[in-house]
């Protein structure tokens, strides 16, 4: 799974506005089991190349492993369009419209079915092999663009190792705590370590 770059990384030049709300967001995501949503917002905020592809893979992983049909995403649409383009062109006579629509639906459905079946098999394999293990297994989730290995652990049992989305949310929390508590820590570091007041220079954003 590609490593996400941090968005909220403190660099000492950002202001502190909004940090509490992002913070609350991270906490609430962990409370409401919505860490994926948090991930989405962070990823989309990043607006980097590959962002949509990354989000798409996360989405496919989640929906497939929940036993649902994945939403028609970027790759599905492209694949379906390609399949339709490859079909012999229908004559423009009466009924061509609905036939075309029907064939599109059929192609789309078949692509979806492959993914769902593949996903279920993978999910099952994962569930079985998870028994008695503590470490998560890499789960290969197939999307229409080909096999994309995604590091994940989606068992029903609670495992000591965390799910990727949790890690992201917790990292966000750690980042926020660093920002929130650095100054208070520096009050003590500046009186109890040999560098004098310099520990305040470590504080990402000094507040009044």
């Amino acid at each position, binding site marked *: 799974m590609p490593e996400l770059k941090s968005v909220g990384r*403190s*660099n*000492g*030049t950002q202001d502190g506005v909004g940090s509490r709300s992002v913070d609350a967001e991270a*906490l609430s995501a*962990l*409370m409401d*089991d919505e*860490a994926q949503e948090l991930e989405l917002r962070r990823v989309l905020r990043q607006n980097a190349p590959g962002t949509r592809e990354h989000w798409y893979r996360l989405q496919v992983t989640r929906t497939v492993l929940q036993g649902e049909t994945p939403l028609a995403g970027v790759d599905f649409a492209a694949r379906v369009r390609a399949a339709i383009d490859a079909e012999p062109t229908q004559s423009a006579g009466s009924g061509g419209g609905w036939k075309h629509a029907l064939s599109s639906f059929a192609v789309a459905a078949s692509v979806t079915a492959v993914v769902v079946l593949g996903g279920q098999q993978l999910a099952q394999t994962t569930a079985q092999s998870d028994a008695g293990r503590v470490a998560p297994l890499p789960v290969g989730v197939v999307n229409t663009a080909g096999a994309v290995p995604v590091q994940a652990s989606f068992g029903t049992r*609670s495992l000591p190792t*965390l799910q990727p989305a*949790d*890690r992201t*949310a*917790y*990292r*966000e*929390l*750690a*980042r926020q*705590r*660093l920002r929130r*508590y*650095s*100054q*208070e*820590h520096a*009050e*003590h*570091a*500046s*009186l*109890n*370590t*040999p*560098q*004098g*007041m*310099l*520990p*305040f*220079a*470590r504080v*990402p*954003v*000094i*507040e*009044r």
Partner: protein
Amino acid sequence: MHGCRSLNARFLAFALSLGAATAAATDNCPNLEPEVVRLLQAMSSNAQQVSYSGVVTLQRGGDMQVIEMSHGVQNGEETEVISRLTGQDARVERSGHSAGCMHPGHQLLQASAALGSGVCGLSTSYRFRVAPGDRIAGRAALRLRAEPLDMYRFGYVFEIDRDTALMLKSTTLAADQRVLEQFQFASIEMQASPVAEAATAHQAQHPHPHEPPAQEHGLPWEVVWLPEGFVPTDAVPQRSLRKSYTDGLASFSVFLEPLARAIKPGEGLERQGSTVAYTRGLQLQGRPVLVTVLGEIPTNTARMVADAVRLR
């Protein structure tokens, strides 16, 4: 700004009671050479009693900050100011601090000199070596290397001014000798001087080592394990949001936040230079809490400390 009288009284008593045993100090503490003892003591006390000012750089990873700083002593009171010359337009000032007021971290630094009753101060946690140093900010320095004796803390290399014993450069090293952080004077003058004003000005607090602050917050808690050599920096009530600790060279703080609802258990980490913020969500006696350990310590230390947080 309140003074530090009770601390001075206590420390004085503490130092005197150990005075008789001073002769045996270095015999009992093989890691502690007399030269090191003198250097640590001078570095710690002169930092409070000498007036100086200058420009300091702070390097952490690829990031470099430039900071202007001034330390003045007048009528036995210190005024310390740092002001950021890069990045955020901010300054921090601590004024009216008694130059004789010694907090636990500096007591540990200086205790090495006075102790002889089987207590070796910092030398139980670090091995010290003195060597000729570099030229820093146009001044000749001695190099004091502090190597950790366990895995719970980082190593340090200090370049100490030969004339004044002021710390001119401080490097924090990971176990693999990677440089995590470096403070260094680019220029220094042996007098206090005015420091740039800033948009954000913070008056530093003076957390008292023995008088607990009034504020309390909900749950009584404690840290049942600390790496050897770490002591509390101040007296805090059991219900305090924060508890801080120092071993004389490093420090970290532990924060406990009670949560309204349970969250998925887990852990998160953010490291910036030598500073780590480690956050763990868990349930203690059925109460959902968020524990954060923040400080200049290795990740595993933070993790182990977080693991040792208990409700009382």
